């Protein structure tokens, strides 16, 4: 597949602080990439480098096969959408959309046509003569997307575009961005700290920490086969359960002595001898009752806290001496203090080396 954006050995220093170090990333034509990570992980910095808003210290950036490392943002063939919308407040929506094109000296007919097309795609035609102050947050963000759209570019950059919106609008606009991507088929690079946005929108997710990409994979792989403890803990809500212990062959012994057979686990690397390691199981891979009986590991557990969430119920308990949460259908009645049989679906679990934190 053709590369749309390609980042080679990108390094960025602020003074003596290394924000990004030898970062490589290849993004295919039409791909939707999400850069995901906590604040301060360098994801926005990376996006600003791609946009040309920050000068890189070392390395190269290619967009559509062209080396754009030292080009001005406007010449890179990108459009960008910001968290604060960044609309020009004294201009009407129409002027907001057309201002860049008018400054570039484009013929008026062409500008009108592009503005009309963007307004049609985003359904903001009735708003064209209004000023940003008279728009709701969702409408403003649509206008901001429109401003990227009229530039008719290859690559769209989104810098936490939904973070200023309330939960309902956020999920509406999320679907719209996805629809937009399916219709336009442009390359999109999207920065967020919200894992739901990342999982729902992305073709591939790049999880970042301290300026380094931890894992770059499709959402299912990221979710089911995290490469290290950091990724495993970051993705998923509630978080994956971690049980520290020792792995020897096909038996995992928790720190309190509980033995868990892990023969069903699909090892990446086979280790010989006993290794300090961590067993990770997602809350939905801990099963109850009859389903638990077929699992390689079962135990009795006392329920400590029950959190009904409507469609499902979260329960807190203790297994092998550590707190464990599990998720089950809300049809199953659970009571605090009740003893239940839980079974771990080891085949869908994860094992990590306790020292290197890498997946085993």
């Amino acid at each position: 597949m053709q590369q749309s954006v390609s980042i080679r050995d990108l390094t960025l220093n602020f003074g003596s602080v290394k924000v990004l170090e030898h970062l490589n990333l290849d993004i295919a034509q039409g791909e939707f990439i999400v850069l995901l990570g906590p604040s301060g992980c360098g994801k926005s910095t990376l996006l600003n480098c791609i946009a040309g808003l920050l000068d890189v210290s070392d390395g190269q950036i290619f967009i559509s096969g062209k080396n754009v490392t030292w080009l001005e943002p406007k010449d890179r063939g990108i459009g960008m959408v910001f968290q604060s919308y960044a609309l020009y407040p004294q201009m009407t929506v129409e002027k907001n959309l057309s201002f860049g094109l008018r400054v570039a000296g484009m013929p008026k007919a062409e500008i009108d046509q592009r503005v009309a097309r963007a307004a049609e795609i985003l359904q903001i035609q009735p708003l064209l003569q209004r000023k940003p102050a008279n728009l709701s947050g969702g409408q403003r963000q649509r206008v901001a997307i429109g401003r990227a759209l009229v530039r008719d570019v290859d690559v769209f950059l989104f810098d936490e575009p939904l973070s200023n919106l309330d939960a309902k609008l956020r999920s509406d606009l999320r679907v719209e961005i996805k629809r937009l991507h399916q219709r336009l088929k442009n390359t999109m690079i999207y920065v967020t700290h919200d894992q739901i946005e990342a999982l729902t929108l992305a073709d591939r997710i790049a999880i970042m920490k301290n300026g380094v990409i931890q894992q770059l994979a499709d959402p299912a792989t990221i979710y089911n086969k995290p490469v290290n403890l950091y990724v495993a803990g970051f993705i998923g809500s509630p978080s994956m359960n971690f049980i520290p212990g020792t792995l020897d062959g096909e038996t995992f012994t928790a720190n309190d002595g509980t033995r868990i057979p892990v023969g069903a686990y699909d090892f990446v690397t086979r280790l010989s001898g006993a290794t300090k390691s961590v067993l990770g199981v997602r809350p939905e891979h801990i099963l109850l009752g009859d389903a638990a009986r077929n699992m390689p590991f079962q135990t009795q557990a006392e329920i400590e806290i029950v959190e009904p969430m409507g469609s499902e119920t979260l329960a807190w308990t203790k297994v092998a001496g550590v707190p464990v949460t599990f998720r089950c259908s809300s049809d199953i009645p659970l009571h605090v203090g009740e003893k239940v049989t839980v079974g771990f679906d080891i085949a869908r679990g994860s094992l990590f080396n306790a020292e290197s934190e890498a997946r085993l």
Partner: protein
Amino acid sequence: MADTAAPLAMGAERVDRPGLLQRIFLHNVPAKIAALPMVATVLVVFVGCVAWTIYYSFTNSKLLPTGKFVGFDQYERLFATSRWNVSVWNLIAYGSMSLVFTLVIGFILAVLIDQKIRFESAFRTIMLYPFALSFIVTGLVWQWIMNPTLGLQGTLRGLGWTGFTFDWIANPRMVLFALLIAGLWHGTGFCMVLMLAGLRGVDEEVWKAARIDGIPTWRTYVSIVIPMMRGVLVTAVVIIGSGIVRLYDLVVALTNGGPGISSEVPAKYVFNYMFSGGNIGQGLAGATMMLLTVLIIMIPWAYLEFGGKGRRT
């Protein structure tokens, strides 16, 4: 003021007729009682004194405000006096130049300081320092600097540059510019600080968006940033404008109206006639004309700014 007036007026329309008076006098009584001293001050000091001034400007009062009514005599005399006419023209010329240059220089300084330069706060302090000095001190300092025999001209000539001339303060045609230099030195720093606050209020992402759109920096300032700074600009114009209209102490300290009457200003004219010329009627006529000028400028502006329901952005 319009902010509070508009909802009040709307509220009053909704109230039934029997409740209206009650509402005006009894609604929120503690707040109204608390505002009474200020209301009294405004009525007595501002409205009362203005009325007093206007009334006595129509009398032939000399040393004491006791004269009899003489109609527009004082005004006829005022506009027949060349010293007054020179004062008015001086104020117009100085005022327009001062307003424009203070805003432009203040804005440019603010833009320069906003470039994330080193020692920003040191520069800011240096620029703002003159504003901490009174106009009297400013005037005296610049009088020394611009004095042809003692100041810059004398020093440079003493150093051997005998052709150097800088005698604006003694030159009737240039003295207004001497005044302008001192005024700008005093006021631009403050204007810069106001503008800087306005520039800092502009979201950094707007700048980024403009760069992505390929809008040149100067164009971003002119078309996007300055319109966003409207509130700061209005504040700056009001502060600079009020300083211009009451221009008095700088002139007294720097030139004392000279050479001749070439740097006279209206406030000085009014002061001289009221307190040393012993002609209160003439002084008050001048004061009334100053008030009228301010109103002529302010009323259309206030109408544009606050008039028309819901037109404000």
